[in-house]
């Protein structure tokens, strides 16, 4: 068995065990309906988490994704409802704005030599502030395209519905896996996360890669915003509050090292699904309050960080330090 895949296998195993345990208690959870809802309800989180995985593998962090999602929903809502743009034109504008936003943040991180944490924090304030300046109130979106998209789905055997936004998330994960493991850009990102100096000495275009990674993350956050606006049919400046933390949690649970240079896009998918499972379980249970979601996710995060440390200290031959202090 490949040692490098151990964390991924551990995460998958824990998800499978948790799912089996949940099904034993509530047999109705084993249905394509529930699985379809997993995908639909967590589509925006999954899409944003793919971008976050790339950023974290490159050794950075992006705190602005939740704010970019919120900003995108408001931008789309104002473009469609006030400017009268066709939704697809509004989507294109939103993606363009998000990509530009990410590129500027990436450039600031590289050229100003500021920690990504602070730059994206400023980006988060800017995007949230910009969204509430555009419109402090929630704007409902009414358009035939929106109703058409929310009505179309693929019927799975067993009555489950694979919605358009669920499919978009699956497609983003597929593209993300190919991009990370099968392209030159993907190798550059891993190299950058391993060691920026070594990467630069090996001839990795550090500036371009850094800018592209944050552009990718912001663009995917923009796409997540589009999906979120399709999901809720509204634009609100405070929507997707704290999604950046959920996305980081999904990435960590998925086995990606926060120091960069090591991780899987596929693991992030399991991380997102595990969070969906926790939420669904709490809904099924009915007696547990929603705040348990936060405690359980925090506990899972802790468990997986601990697990990563144990797995890594066991599998590294000479006690090589994987966690920079």
């Amino acid at each position, binding site marked *: 068995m490949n040692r490098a895949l151990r964390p991924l296998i551990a995460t998958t195993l824990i998800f499978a065990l948790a799912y089996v345990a949940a099904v034993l208690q509530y047999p109705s959870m084993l249905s394509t309906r529930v699985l379809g809802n997993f995908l639909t309800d967590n589509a925006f989180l999954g899409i944003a988490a793919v971008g976050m995985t790339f950023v974290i593998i490159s050794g950075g962090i992006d705190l602005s994704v939740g704010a970019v999602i919120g900003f995108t929903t408001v931008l789309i809502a104002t473009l469609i409802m006030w400017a009268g743009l066709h939704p697809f034109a509004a989507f294109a504008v939103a993606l363009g704005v998000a990509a530009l936003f990410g590129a500027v943040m990436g450039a600031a991180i590289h050229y100003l*030599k500021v920690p990504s944490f602070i730059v994206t924090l400023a980006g988060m304030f*800017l995007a949230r502030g910009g969204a509430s300046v555009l419109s402090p109130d929630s704007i409902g979106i009414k358009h035939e395209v929106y109703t058409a998209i929310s009505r179309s789905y693929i019927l799975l055997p067993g009555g489950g519905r694979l919605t358009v936004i669920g499919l978009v998330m699956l497609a983003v994960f597929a593209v993300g896996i190919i991009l990370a493991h099968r392209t030159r850009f993907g190798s550059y990102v891993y190299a950058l996360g391993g060691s920026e100096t070594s990467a630069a000495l090996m001839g990795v275009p550090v500036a371009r890669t850094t800018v592209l990674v944050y552009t990718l993350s912001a663009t995917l956050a923009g796409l997540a915003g589009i999906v979120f606006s399709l999901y809720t049919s509204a634009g609100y400046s405070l929507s997707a509050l704290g999604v950046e933390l959920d996305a980081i949690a999904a990435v960590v649970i998925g086995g990606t090292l926060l120091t960069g240079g090591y991780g899987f896009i596929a693991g992030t998918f399991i991380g997102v699904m595990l969070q969906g499972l926790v939420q669904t379980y709490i809904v099924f249970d009915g007696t547990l309050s929603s705040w348990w979601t936060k405690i359980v996710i925090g506990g899972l995060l802790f468990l997986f960080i601990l697990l990563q440390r144990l797995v890594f200290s066991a599998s590294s031959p000479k006690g090589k330090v994987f966690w920079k202090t």
Partner: protein
Amino acid sequence: MRRSNLKAHLLRPQFAALAAVLFINWLLFPGFFAITWQDGRFFGSVIDVLNRGAPVAILAIGMTAVIATRGVDLSVGAVMAISGAVAAVMVSDGTPAVVAVAVALSAGLVCGLWNGVLVTYLDIQPIIATLVLMVAGRGLAQLVTEGSIVTFADPLLIYIGTGSLLGLPMPVVIAAVLMLLATLAVRRTALGLLIEAVGVNRSAARFAGISSRLLLLLVYTFAGFCAAISGLIVAGDIRGADANNAGLWMELDAILAVVIGGTSLLGGRFSIPMSVVGALIIQAMNTGILISGFSPQFNLVVKSAVIILILVLQSPMAAQWIARRTTAAERTPR
């Protein structure tokens, strides 16, 4: 402290920024500096800035120590919610307020200790180690309050949030005392030097004989303690504990205050009083935006513009540019 040293301190850009913000506030609102004496305490916009800025200032004091060790504590907002919730629930159950405050502060100490253990003994990156408590902490606070907003009428807790001592609001007094004690502790003993040593290079500090683990534990525990104090103030101010909103995003304001104060995020250089000045700059901006009649939404945009400006000014590129300018100016004959 020598006099020239004090003058150099007062000439720092942070004080210029604070003066500029206060000046703009004065232009927008001519009565800004007016202070009146009423019911045995001072009232006025400046006092209000100090009062509103106190919770973030207290967080910033703890955060400064953490950031000086090249760490960061994201959980302070959640710890505020926990301490407020603990105090409120205990008081409404009839526990004496002194005990409730003590237990709330110990809850903060325990939270800080937890972060410290994760960072030192498990060697987890500070951002991630404290992220755990940031995510779970608010849930724990809601567990304590059982999901509702617990209100109370206990005089001691309300006094912490809204009372006054020597004419000054209690939060200001607490923040000032804490700042003074913390500054004395780090500057009059070797503690500050040790913290800086750990921040610059943890292994080098260990080889130099500094018990970096103990020091890191101490620093994170102190940050948790500061967060607990801040949580008590916020709870006392609204006479209730709101697990969802108490201290929400305050960790970001505190980090911002520390950065504005000139503490290096790369560790090793820190100043507690300057972080407090940073917190006051943020609050003066908030107040300015409010009294100028702009909607509070502009707050975030202005805040981000200030961060960007500071980052550009602190960046190596700007330093190079200034260095080039000064050498060029020296070369040109006058």
